[in-house]
């Protein structure tokens, strides 16, 4: 046993060093920046578009007096509904040819005008594209009503006492934490387990696999590779989480302390996150490594790994049913099914403060990890050293 562990360690040390000490690992660490940057760029564009779409502009063709009353009424309503959600009113003095003026305003680009209000407060008439926009129409009705009888629609004084959280907000926040935790677990696993495939291809293309196979048990090599990439992945994740925490500390008022705390607490949640990532990674990684052993080219690897990736997405979908109702039958099934268990349980950690289900799940998953690694290594040993004519991967004859 000691020799097995020592052999696995030799492989793990080589692979870990080759991965983490390579220049390309810096790109690997920077990888999450790219989606964040993309998200930021597209998010700001989207936000601008959304702002424009959310605040329609209505041109008011009226006397100055009528417009002042409408504007005051709008301001009062904005106190109740919020400035950002209210229509904007822009005043235009009436021109001799009203029809022409309306047509010109409706085709105006700056500002883009949704509708034109004419007839003043007494005989209001709206012309514009508002058939699918009942919100704008409703707001204008309220504004006009308020302008006709100022003061009647003044919002009542409602003193507010703010608390840190309520049961309603806690459930919502924890569900969000569960969702984010589960998604991170899924994406990290899918992205990082894929790296294992290239590892086997490297060994095969460098033809060093025979040197290794002559010196140590092939299953020690399998385990060494698996844990080397797990260690490299955890290195990356620790860097990313630390960088994320620093970023939040700098950018968010109050820092990480203001983040919605998971039910089990942040230290426990982060520890479970690492454990469940390891479990998920080992389960999926063993599958990827076994697939890598069957293939001799990158193309073959990609073809073979596609069904596994899709299956993993289905499993992710299954595990996501645990969010919001961790004791439902489907959530319990997702927690018991070994491949979805890590993702289901990280969601549970965000929503349920009890530790014993987590400990049971870790033992259960550990058992399955051992089983899958055992069978994966066996398959790996039988197929990775196939020489001579390429045999079909499903014909697993003893080498």
């Amino acid at each position, binding site marked *: 046993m000691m020799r097995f562990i*020592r052999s696995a360690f*030799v492989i793990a040390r080589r692979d870990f060093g080759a991965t983490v000490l390579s220049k390309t690992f810096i790109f690997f660490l920077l990888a999450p920046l790219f989606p964040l940057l993309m998200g930021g760029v597209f998010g700001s564009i989207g936000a601008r578009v959304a702002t424009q779409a959310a605040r329609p502009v209505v041109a008011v063709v009226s006397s100055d007096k009528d417009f002042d009353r409408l504007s005051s009424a709008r301001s009062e309503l904005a106190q109740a509904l919020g400035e950002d959600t209210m229509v904007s009113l822009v005043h235009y003095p009436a021109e001799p040819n009203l029809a022409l003026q309306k047509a010109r305003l409706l085709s105006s680009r700056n500002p883009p005008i949704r509708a034109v209000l004419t007839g003043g407060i007494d005989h209001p008439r709206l012309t514009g594209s508002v058939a699918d926009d009942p919100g704008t129409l409703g707001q204008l009705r309220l504004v006009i009503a308020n302008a006709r009888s100022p003061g009647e629609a003044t919002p009542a004084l409602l003193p507010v006492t703010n608390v840190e959280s309520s049961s309603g907000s806690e459930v919502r926040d924890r569900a969000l934490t569960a969702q984010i935790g589960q998604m991170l677990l899924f994406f990290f696993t899918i992205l990082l387990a894929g790296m294992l495939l290239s590892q086997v291809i490297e060994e095969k293309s*460098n033809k*060093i696999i*025979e040197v*290794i196979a002559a*010196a140590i048990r092939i299953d020690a090599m399998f385990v060494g590779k698996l844990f080397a990439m797990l260690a490299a992945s955890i290195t990356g994740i620790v860097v990313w989480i630390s960088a994320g925490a620093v970023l939040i500390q700098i950018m968010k008022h109050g820092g990480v302390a203001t983040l919605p705390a998971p039910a089990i607490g942040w230290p426990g949640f982060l520890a479970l996150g690492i454990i469940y990532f390891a479990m998920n990674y080992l389960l999926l990684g063993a599958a990827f490594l076994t697939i890598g052993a069957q293939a001799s080219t990158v193309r073959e690897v990609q073809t073979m790994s596609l069904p596994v990736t899709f299956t993993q997405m289905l499993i992710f979908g299954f595990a996501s049913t645990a969010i919001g109702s961790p004791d439902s039958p489907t959530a319990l099934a997702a927690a018991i099914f070994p491949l979805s268990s890590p993702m289901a349980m990280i969601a549970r950690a965000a929503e349920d403060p009890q530790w014993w289900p987590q400990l049971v799940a870790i033992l259960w998953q550990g058992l399955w990890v051992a089983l899958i690694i055992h069978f994966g290594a066996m398959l790996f040993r039988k197929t990775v050293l196939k020489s001579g004519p390429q045999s079909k991967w499903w014909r697993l004859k*003893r080498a």
Partner: protein
Amino acid sequence: MLQQVSQSAAPFAPAVEATELVKDFGETRAVDGVTLAVPKGSIYGLLGPNGAGKTTILRMLIGIIDPSSGTRRVLGQERPLEVAPEVGYLPEERGLYPSMYARDAIAFMGSLRGLPLSEGRRRADELLEEHNLGDWAKKPIRSLSKGMAQTVQLLGTIVHRPRLIVLDEPFAGLDAINQGRLEELIRRETRAGATVIFSTHVIAHAERLCERVAIIAKGRVAFDGRVDEARAKLRPIVRLRTRAAEGPWRSAIPADARRDGEEWVFELPESGPEPLLKVLIDGGAGIETLAIERPGLHDAFVAIAGPSAAEAMGREKVQ
């Protein structure tokens, strides 16, 4: 543990023994009942053309693959991987990590066999210096020439000072100078007490290096023994040139003798050279030249493995 293994092995037991080894790949029988014994401290050659089964035999002997049937015993152990730290193996298809430094590659190969990494690096530096590659110790493998990379891999095979060194076609791809160096390295390792088994399809290497050879043809051992014994399978060859074309001396020429230009070529009769000479002289042959040649390993190989195997070996050598 290694000491226990060494002590448990009988002192005069062969370093490697194989009994009736069979290996089937699907419907194909690659190795068919191979039995051989490699004495400790010897240089042992596996001779045969490509496809004869040499690599498969070596892979079974060192435990990369298991035989379909038959038994093997390596340094006293039936499970070869148990003695992996005492074995060095150079596969036919050379392989190293391209981005690894030469010294690290050697140390890594040693660490696979249980040598601590720091000690491996120290020995790697020594070995590289000895082989005039000291300046390349901290250069990545990808920057080395093919010959240098092969030398590095060979040094990685012996860095942990194995008692058994198994080399699969070690001379392939090396130029004449590096082949000479490799031959010297093999001799040096055996002088230090190691047993060396190597496969080759170049008979000259086996003839120069080996004390014992196994001639492999179609997955079987056609011959296993000392090189002298292989040669002894054939009678010495007589090459004779005479001034006289005909005469009573012709009675000394066997019926199966052949002409090679002006020379008669035939096996030395069992009675030896003296009666032959007497008949030739008394019969008025007028001996111009007479040579009695000891048959080479190549001749023995042709006789044992058959002309088609010899032809295949010749083709591979040219390639």
